[in-house]
């Protein structure tokens, strides 16, 4: 069992049991069971089209917004069924934030971008918003670069800064989990480095589930790795192996995992 540094009673752990995703009549992902430990980084790796992003979107029910996707099995967040009646998807998404592949700040100021989530939750007091904005921008390591000009339009920032703004925006709702879908794939190496440093600091307090194409990145930043694979075009994607990153990258149990991480395909 992989545990993060602050695991004593920490919130933000997922338990997946036989999770499947179906689009219309096509099954995209089938039979995924795994534990996602709190306050640690879990990386989902695998070749393109192997269902990593689809699985990620189950965790904050963003698949619901894409029309005809049906999710089977059970997903528990700290023991609560996220597809059950007692949890509204809107409430779930304040606990489970998401950072997308391409930076997607809103067309508004830096301040308003970060304050969007808290305002959605009904926070109106200026002092409180100021405090949340500052704390979130500090945690995403953007504060130093933008503190003098929070009124600046978000689109004036560079790509890497925009992505760190999106991380701050996701942190502002004080989530227990942040999902990241290839957050550095459109960024240059220096910006990527900054995002990775940010992730390393964030996992002190939040659970991170990251989809990545980049195996070196998975090896660098994650505590646990899950390898997914679609054996053929017709077959649904499956979870091949999940385990502690260090062990998996040095001594994989499954031959297919070994083939993938040693670069023989994918």
């Amino acid at each position, binding site marked *: 069992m992989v545990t993060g540094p602050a695991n004593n009673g920490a919130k933000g752990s997922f338990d997946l049991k036989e999770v499947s995703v179906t689009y219309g009549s096509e099954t995209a992902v089938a039979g995924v069971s795994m534990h996602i430990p709190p306050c640690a980084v879990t990386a989902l790796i695998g070749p393109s089209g192997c269902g990593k992003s689809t699985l990620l979107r189950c965790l904050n029910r963003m698949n619901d917004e894409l029309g005809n996707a049906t999710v089977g099995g059970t997903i528990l967040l700290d023991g609560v069924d996220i597809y059950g009646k007692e949890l509204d998807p809107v*409430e779930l*998404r304040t606990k489970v934030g998401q950072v997308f592949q391409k930076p997607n700040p809103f067309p508004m100021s830096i301040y308003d971008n970060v304050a*969007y989530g808290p305002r*959605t939750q009904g926070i109106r007091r200026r002092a409180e918003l100021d405090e949340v904005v500052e704390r979130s921008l500090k945690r995403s390591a953007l504060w130093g670069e933008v503190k003098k000009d929070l009124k600046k339009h978000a*689109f004036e920032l560079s790509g890497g800064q925009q992505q760190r703004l999106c991380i701050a925006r996701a942190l502002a*709702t004080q989530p227990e989990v942040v999902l990241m879908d290839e957050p550095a794939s459109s960024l240059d190496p220096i910006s990527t480095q900054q995002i990775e440093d940010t992730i390393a600091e964030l996992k002190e307090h939040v659970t991170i589930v990251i989809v990545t194409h980049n195996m070196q990145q998975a090896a660098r930043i994650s505590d646990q790795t899950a390898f997914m694979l679609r054996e053929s075009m017709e077959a649904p994607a499956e979870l091949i192996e999940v385990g502690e990153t260090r062990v998996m990258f040095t001594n994989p149990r499954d031959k297919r995992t070994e083939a993938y991480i040693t670069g023989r395909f994918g």
Partner: protein
Amino acid sequence: MNRRIRQARIAQTVAVAVTGTAAALVVAAALFLLVYITVRGLPAISWEFLTDVPRQQMKAGGIFPVIMGTLALTLATAALSLPVGVAAGIYLSEYAPRSRFTRVIRLSISNMAGVPSIVYGLFGLALFVILMGIGKSILAGALTLACLTLPVIITATEEALRQIPTDLRQASLALGATRWRTIYKVVLPAAAPGIVTGSILGLSRAAGETAPILFTAAVYYKRQLPDSVFADVMALPYHIFILATQVTGRPDDIIWGTAFVLVGGVTAISVAAAAWRSAQRRKVRW
């Protein structure tokens, strides 16, 4: 030079000439129209012409009540068609599932756009003026013009909303915002420039229409300004028609002056909208 290449070169030259001429014709037609109306109409424009009532069986005086009539009709049309049109556009772009019902909606919209304006005039007379008993009035005229403007506003809204990247909607939903909050906080503000310019095009069209208000709102002569939405009014396009066909012995420049006011007003609003839009575009880009 070999023959095949020479022929290809000639074809190329001909194509440039033909398409270029067609484009130039469009510009020439628009320019000629604007210049001609300005040359003929501008001499009639004076402070008195813009602020006085028509006098001597409309052979002299000004067109103040006519301007105010068209202004009232256009504003009332905007007030009626904008909320419904924008709301319907939002529904079609953001909420509507692909179903038989939405196909019926889309078919109705294109049918509405295809109906000739004189038919709207008759329809407005039958429904609003007679059946609903509103009488010949600003309200009846604006309701009729709204039917004409709605398809333009709905389509403009839908198009503008579709231009907004899905990523932006997802970012908002992923922060725990409902669909509606996503629409009015993120999507609508970003789409506003497109919605406004599209709507203004539709409304300037309505401001210049004669047939729909012929039986529903416009009167031959009325010097008082309207005191409520149930009053009938004079209107610029109808006044031009009356001056041209019904008033004998009037100086020509009064007609051209009236036309200049109509075209000038509509053009000024369109240009202002376009300027505002490009200012917004500079702020909002993806």
